């Protein structure tokens, strides 16, 4: 096996290492592929489908698809971005997202992606589901209204914290994140320092008493769209 693999993303020839996914190789070359369920350091999940690219004309999730010599990848095209907007719209209408008073506003990856892709309002009808809030724990709460089922907390708790506090239950539209206890987060051994708490891209898993601490103008995505750090070659702030 050669030490590098040459392939093409959007007419640009780039090089990656064997074993890398399209998303990782692109990122190393300063190309941002939009993503949500992916988080550096966690096993790729392939569930949000935002990172879908065309590989030799076939749709594949960039976060799970390994690179191969000579592959032709279409990423930043009107077609793919249109499809991504549709997926983001789906996530917005599936839950109850109220950016204007959400603690995560400005630091939220879903919101930031919507802005980056030029979404102002979703084109699909809101579903207004009834979902629970679990505020039983003294320091951390879950607001399932904002959960996008990306599984980042599940993987972080299982693989990084070694606790397995979260898991998916139910299927189809009834799928939700449940905790490893009879009912309440308070009955688990989660702690403030768990990676799982950091891993949530939206405002579904939050620390108490620190909301709105960062003033508008200093939040993660107040000045530059999400992904700009990757495009300018700086290590992604969102992943640490």
């Amino acid at each position, binding site marked *: 096996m050669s030490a590098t693999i040459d392939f093409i993303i959007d007419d640009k020839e780039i090089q990656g290492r064997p074993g890398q996914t399209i998303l990782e190789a692109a990122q190393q070359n300063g190309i941002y592929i939009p993503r949500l369920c992916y988080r550096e350091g966690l096993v790729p999940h392939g569930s949000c489908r935002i990172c879908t690219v065309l590989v030799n004309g076939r749709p594949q999730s960039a976060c799970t698809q390994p690179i191969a010599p000579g592959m032709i990848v279409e990423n930043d095209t009107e077609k793919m971005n249109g499809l991504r907007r549709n997926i983001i719209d789906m996530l917005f209408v599936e839950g109850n997202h109220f950016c204007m008073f959400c603690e995560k506003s400005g630091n939220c990856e879903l919101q930031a992606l919507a802005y980056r892709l030029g979404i102002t309002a979703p084109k699909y009808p809101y579903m207004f589901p009834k979902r629970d809030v679990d505020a039983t724990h003294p320091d951390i709460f879950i607001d399932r209204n904002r959960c996008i089922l990306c599984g980042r907390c599940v993987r972080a708790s299982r693989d990084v914290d070694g606790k397995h506090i979260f*898991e998916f239950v139910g299927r189809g539209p009834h799928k939700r994140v449940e905790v490893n206890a009879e009912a309440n987060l308070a009955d688990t051994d989660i702690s403030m320092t768990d990676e799982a708490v950091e891993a949530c891209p939206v405002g579904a898993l939050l620390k108490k008493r620190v909301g709105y601490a960062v003033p508008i103008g200093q939040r993660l995505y107040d000045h530059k769209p999400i992904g700009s750090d990757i495009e300018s070659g700086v290590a992604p702030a969102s992943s640490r």
Partner: protein
Amino acid sequence: MSENLGAAVKEICRAHGHDRTRLMDIVRAVQEQFGCVSGEAMELIAKAVSVHRVEVDSVVSFYAFLSDRPKGKVVIRVCDDIINRMHGADRVAQAFADELGIEVGQTTPDGTITLEYTPCIGMCDQAPAALVNDVVVTDLHRTTARQIVQELRRHLDPRRLVRKLGDGNNAHELVQAMVVNNIRKPGPVIFSPVNRGEAIKKALAMSPVEVIRAVKTSRLRGRGGAGFPTGMKWEFTRGAPGTKRCVICNADEGEPGTFKDRVILTERPDRVFAGMTIAGYAIGADEGILYLRGEYAYLRAFLEDVLQKRRDENLLGNKICGKEDFNFDIRIQMGAGAYICGEETALISSCEGLRGDPKNRPPFPAQKGYLEHPTVVNNVETLGCVTKILEDGPATFNEYGSEGSSGTKLLSISGDCRSPGVFEVPFGITLNEVLRLAGAGDAYAVQVGGPSGQMVSRDEFGRSICYDDLATGGSLMVFGLDRNVLEIADAFLDFFIEESCGYCTPCRVGNVLLKERLGKILAGKGEPSDLKYLQELGETVKLMSRCGLGQTSANPILTTLKNFRSVYDALVKEATDGLQPSFDIHAAMSESEKITGRKSVHFLA
């Protein structure tokens, strides 16, 4: 009760070697014994097999036949797929409900009987049908439904509901089912008589590589829907690195409208098990799994017995037919009500004791499948063909069928036709000919390949059934002139919404949105722009979904938009008053009217 539960769970987990990969069997056993897998049971199971409680919950909550809340000692599941509904499933369910004094979805107050709907149980040729625990009851009408309840009230023993036994092995002492085979047209491959042991002995006289070559020469392709060349799949699996390999026979048969695998397993199980054994020899596997859908549990004891007979005859087990170094055995893995588990990677997850979530690919099952071992997954019928190929040689097999599609295909035909049932036809046959065989010459539309396939209109009945034209796993649902294709599409969407695993966004959310908009059109509130909306949304779901379910779940919309456009056009109209026809101001105001206690005043009443 609690102590009882503790002891029982302990015993069940011990019987399964405290092996977490056998979680499906463990939770199924607990469900069977206690009518549910309660939170307490989850806790106990988790301890016994060293997993987290939430992982057990994750599995239990995934499968329709498992439940964390108590169900009745007897659960009646009325099949509500479109064919059953056409034959009056709703009336039958209502009769059950009336007689039980409950509604569908409820349990009688004394806790004995639960009534539910369930998607296709593989009995469309004898609809309406229902499952009463594991017992299948067919050809129901309102009177029989009432009688069933009255009888159950007396003895709560579903087995005693079966009075008249079906034909063939349905009457076997280990089956005892009222199910009938309805083999309308037996063909030369699957339904030819089996000479137990012949194919295996012929295979063992060759090298594994020669066996693979024979299967390749036969040009056999998968009968489960995707049509992948079988010999090539085996070759990949044989060549993949690994110390252990596995053969899985996919008997999940969940695509609504298909029931041919049920008939093969009833009448030619030896053909299927021989095919698995030959696959095992060819790829170097020692383990085989038959993944049997929960709905077919009534066949389990019979199939176990066939396996035992094969062991007794040294057609399974160690040194099969005296062949040194060839050890192979088969176990049956029961499913528990999940269509997605027919998808091969979801099926593997389920065999591993997990939720039936599909896996990310690569790696493909041929590289890393069941417990990371290189694995072949083949359909029941595919493996049945393998046996015939070894019996008669690939050349004979090649004589059947058409140029690009060798062999025969089993079709399950149901709906508006005189002779619903199973037909073994040569590939290349036209839809017209098939419809004539089934007594459906006057069909208006045919759903080829089940909900995930396509709705074909009369103009295209000249097309032929083969891999290059109308490819199908075998489900053909026939619809007469008085059927509304949009209502059918709507029913198919209901199915996909419930059966989506929910892992990926486009399938989990997109199907619900498709249904919303189709519902608006069906309610007479559609606008021309809604058709473009449906097309774009459907394409998004198809392109962006992670597995075959979501990649095909928009087909009911996309293929009716293409082939039955005029039906949509007749329903949508441009709003002339400048208002959105779907916006109902009365409904929108109703809540605030309730709060304020007075009617709101608005223009445009």
